[in-house]
């Protein structure tokens, strides 16, 4: 029971779930779900990066003397990754809006996949 519900297991399965949801959304045809998918994948990757320094209980990432300490480097890395991810997400939202404005469609290809059905929908 203890090994089945260990912290590592919970994190790994949770990460897998979030990443899978992100990849599913990224493969959708509209820009909004694609942006959401990119964000979800970004979250999964960021948490994954933190866990690469191993998981720790009651261990601050500061040298305190004798007590055990957590690895601080992945936390520094993930901070950089979060900042970059935030900026790029902002940019991709703006680009998607602009593309919607230019082409009149929020499909990633810039036009409706089936023109006949799109016209029927408008009517």
């Amino acid at each position: 029971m203890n090994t089945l519900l260990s912290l590592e297991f919970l994190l790994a399965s949770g990460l897998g779930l979030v990443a899978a949801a992100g990849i599913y959304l990224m493969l959708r045809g509209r820009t909004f779900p694609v942006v959401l998918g990119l964000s979800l994948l970004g979250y999964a990757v960021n948490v994954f990066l933190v866990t690469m320094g191993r998981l720790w209980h009651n261990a601050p990432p500061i040298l305190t003397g004798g007590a055990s300490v957590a690895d601080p480097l992945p936390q520094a890395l993930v901070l950089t990754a979060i900042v970059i991810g935030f900026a790029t997400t902002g940019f991709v939202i703006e680009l998607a809006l602009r593309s919607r404005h230019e082409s009149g469609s929020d499909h990633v290809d810039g036009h409706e996949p089936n023109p006949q059905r799109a016209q029927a929908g408008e009517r």
Partner: protein
Amino acid sequence: MGALMDFWLQHAPVLTVLLPAMTAVVLLLLGDSGGEHGHDGDSVGVCRRVSLTSVALGLLMAVGLVVHASSGELIVYRLGEWPAPFGIVLLVDRLSALMLLLTATVALPVLWYACGGWDTRGRYFHALFHFQLMGLNGAFVTGDLFNLFVFFEVLLIASYVLLVHGQGRERFCMGVHYVVLNLAASALFLIGLGLVYATTGTLNMADVAQRVALLQGDDATLAHVAAVILLVVFGLKAALVPLYAWLPATYASASAPVAALFAIMTKVGVYSIVRVHGVIFGIDAGALTESVAGWLLPLALTTSALGVLGALAAPNMARLVAYLTVSSVGTILAGVALYSTQAWSAALYYTLHSTLVIAALFLLVELIAAQRGDTCDRLQPAPAVREPVLLGLMMLLGAASAAGLPPLPGFLGKLMILEASHGLSAQAWVWSVVLVVGFFTIIGLARAGAIVFWHVQPSEADAVGHPGHSARLIAPTAVLLLLGVVMAGLASPLKRYTDATAQQLTDKAAYVRAVLGEGAASTTRPYRGEPAR
């Protein structure tokens, strides 16, 4: 003067990054009202002068670094004087210096061309151009894998905005594809880096290179996974099969100077593959030695073949050149995948040449398209161009260089790759693919040239006609093309330099010693909670 030289020598690696960064900031502060005749007509002129001066200075510094690096010394720059595996190091060896020089050599004519009018068709072109250069230079000099990721992001963010420079529906649509693909690749990059850190406990390239050799069992398997994930990431940047489909449409939709600058972007992917898969996971890496070599050669040869088939089928000239980019990357990586100093030297020589020619062709395509009226660069009969002799000769020179006809350097590069594969088991594949690809490149470019210059429709527009091009647009294109010819003249010293570069790359022990020093620091890595030994 002497003090200035000392200062430069001491800080050269970081200055290659700081110079474009500072220039970009200055250009942002100067502002850009958008358009040649904005509120203050002078500001465009000032921006152009600042921008060109900075790139010229960058070129000088790159030449200086190549001269300095050719002695074989590794210039290691520890940021903030932190000792090597803990702080970030920048490192200029022969390969980095060569790539810096190539970047500056492409950037200067391209910027000159852009000053002919493209830079006013959107805002902040010059600032973005310099941010792009900052990312490129940073990626070439960094000695830290996570830092490589950061510089990749810098150059990508600049390229996202440059791609949609000039705007238009087509560019925004392609922009969405390009950005989403690259963001997904960035996520993969981070996963790969996480795995490298988890198994080796470091991200310093020299330290990783040293530690992968010690990995065994599960850790070695995880590191192998990391190597393959990183190959996917770099393969996407370099446009390796099956991740090349984004490139032709994206490059064809970008404005000419941007596409020409992007010719260097695929080479960042190639450079990273050489550094990470060629050196770190390639030489003396214990269980992981040449772990991706089995994948790389078939993929590279397929890329080369599919790229040239795309060029044959291309509906317009921009796409044709974009497919030739894919094809040339395939040829370069085939050389890299042979894992010998001779092949690496050949691949580097071919990289220099193909980047220059592809950049020149992207510019030339726009020159031709501008004189064909509404037909633009589509490959169908149209009214004649205004300057058929000049443009035709430039096209002929570009086509002969790209296809690798003797005595142009493309021929030398391909010959060296063929020679390097002599006696290897893959020789038959390499020879047949490289030779057939060269032949098809000639056919594709000859078809384009024949349609553009000979299948001419008489038209009344001739009477009115466009004016010929200004020297501001012709000259940079001609300079890029002629640089290719100059490379053939300088083949012997260049070959000596690339030979020495390949030799230096394979000397992993010297690389590790230069970065980490003689005595290994006492640490526990990867950190599992035990006290330091």
